[in-house]
């Protein structure tokens, strides 16, 4: 640059080149440290995938295609077909979503559209407390305080619906103890409500006030404003919340293990005992050896794969949303 010509003779030496001024080394060292810490995430995830897949290989070798696609989990006979567990996980996740999504959407609307500004923060904190209660405590509560009353409800519902084509089969043979897919689903629903609420709430909060005010100015009631302005604006964001909530539901372990009743067979009876992948791992990994251990680790690999798929899906949905909002 020509500017250098005008610098007087006593001008300080330029900061680049020559002797490095103090601090340059510290700068580079710190940058390297920070980068290392960031890369740690990559290393840990890589190690998880490597270690888990490696140790589960005996299962996939022994069972092949049957590992996930046959309903034949009989450790005593050396059979480890996990279809019943995979479906059980999906059933619990589905029940949890059916309960948690409407409630979470309701709470999110309550916070953003109905409640007074002053009480919003306390409400949010209260819902977050629900997330703070440990899974095992929910499990203990559900096992001791929830199962018996629920068992009564199940048996009356089952009696009432027996003979009805599809619902009758779904609700047949309720477990007298109350331990069932349904109980597990309810407990998981309680545990995923805070996260779905948190994401949904943030999405609703980004709905432009002008759109809401326009709807109200046209004479819309609050509910019509929500349906006309808030919902269309937030569809993809809520979809992402549901996907993330499902991911949490699938990985929920301890509470499910306590209340699901441990029965790894494929069934459509949601009031009967069942099992999920995570609950089987908790209940049998302690004593498992050989192929069984490999199979349980393999279930961990399946859970991991589901996690990754869900992470990618949620991100894709949210990225699409951001692009659209950027244009609008």
């Amino acid at each position, binding site marked *: 640059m020509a500017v250098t010509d005008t610098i007087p003779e006593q001008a300080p030496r330029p900061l680049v080149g020559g002797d490095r001024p103090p*601090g340059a080394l*510290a*700068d580079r060292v*710190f940058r390297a440290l*920070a*980068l290392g*810490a*960031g890369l740690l*995430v*990559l290393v*840990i*995830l890589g190690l*998880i995938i490597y*270690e*888990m897949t490696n140790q589960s290989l005996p299962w996939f070798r022994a069972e092949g295609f049957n590992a996930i696609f046959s309903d034949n989990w009989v450790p005593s006979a050396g059979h480890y077909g996990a279809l019943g567990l995979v479906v059980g996980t999906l059933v619990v996740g589905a029940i949890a979503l059916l309960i948690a999504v409407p*409630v979470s959407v*309701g*709470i999110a609307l*309550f*916070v953003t*559209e109905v409640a007074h500004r002053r009480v919003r923060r306390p409400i949010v*904190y209260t819902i*977050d*407390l629900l997330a*703070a*209660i*440990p*899974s*095992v*405590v*929910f*499990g*203990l509560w559900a096992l001791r*305080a929830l199962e018996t009353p629920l068992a009564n409800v199940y048996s009356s519902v089952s009696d009432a619906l027996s003979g009805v084509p599809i619902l009758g089969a779904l609700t047949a043979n309720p477990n007298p103890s109350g331990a069932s897919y349904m109980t597990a689903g309810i407990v998981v629903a309680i545990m995923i409500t805070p996260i779905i*609420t948190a994401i949904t709430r943030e999405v609703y909060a980004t709905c432009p006030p002008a*759109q809401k005010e*326009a*709807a109200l100015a046209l004479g819309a*009631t*609050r509910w*019509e404003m929500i*349906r*006309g*302005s808030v919902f*269309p604006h937030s569809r993809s964001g809520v979809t992402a919340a549901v996907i*993330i909530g499902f991911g949490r539901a699938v*990985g929920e*372990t*301890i509470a499910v293990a306590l209340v699901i009743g441990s029965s790894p067979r494929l069934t459509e009876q949601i009031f009967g005992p069942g099992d999920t992948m*995570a609950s089987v*791992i908790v209940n049998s990994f302690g004593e498992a050896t050989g192929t069984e251990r490999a199979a349980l*680790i393999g279930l961990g690999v399946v859970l*991991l794969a589901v*996690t*990754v798929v869900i*992470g*990618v899906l949620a*991100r894709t949905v949210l990225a699409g949303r951001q692009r659209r909002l950027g*244009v*609008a």
Partner: protein
Amino acid sequence: MTTVAPRAPATPARPDSIYRSRDGHRSRKARNTVATSLISASFVLALVPLVGVVVFIVQKGSGVFGWHFLTTDIPFSDRDFGGGMKPAVVGTLLITGAATVMAVPLGVLGAIYLNEYGKQGPLARLIRFLAEIMTGVPSIVMGLFIYLLWVLPRKQNGLSGFAGALALGCLMLPIVIRTSEEILRVVPEELREGSYALGSRKVRTIRTVVLPHAAPGIVSGALLAVARAAGETAPLLFVIGIVTSTNTSIFNGPNTTLSQQIFRGATSPFVAAQERAYGAALTLVLLVFIFTALARIVTSLYARRSSAGG
């Protein structure tokens, strides 16, 4: 690209759907009332399990809870009444503490890389994405992973509080990275530029300007991560072993935590063990609520300071 007409923003209030029931003003109003009550009811519905759990745990746990409970070892047999949860309290604090010592500094450093160095570069975006995935990894998978990586190669010596701390640390790391980055992102750029203008290097700017400004938020996020980790059970079951007497060493010998004792008590057929589980649950919930409350206090102090200092 510019010729493409911008897509209409999410369809605003569609008149046809809104005025569908023009004749029935009453029904529109009624519908609004029903919807509003359902929305309010959903909040009340969410309170039911919260209140239910807290009342249940306090009712069942307060019978055994007390100073004696916190300072006495666990009876050797599940059949024996009395005793306490001291080993589990010590274990929970030790293991969670060790996990925090590992995960928080590394997580904050990682967040600094993402926000101050990597920014929107491909590597930073990859790390950000992987941290997001890692947040979703089920805790039981983390437990299996640490079992394979740390416990298995060491046979019986592998079962230790440290293995549990590793598992919890792996769970906390991505949470700390993500919350810290959120906080660093809202540090005003002008502050950094001011520091650079005074001749500070990047590392000095981060140390003396960015981190102090972000500290309350980072501390609050870390406390929430600690609260979550303290209650975890699944990742610990296979890696810390179990003891009934207090083990203050994190590296030597098996350990135990409140969450593990609750799980054992919940599955135990003996009333004595079940009672202790309620006491342990009360202790754990108190512990977790204290951490959560601390996080809230730090946040509100920070909010007051920044609004006053302006």
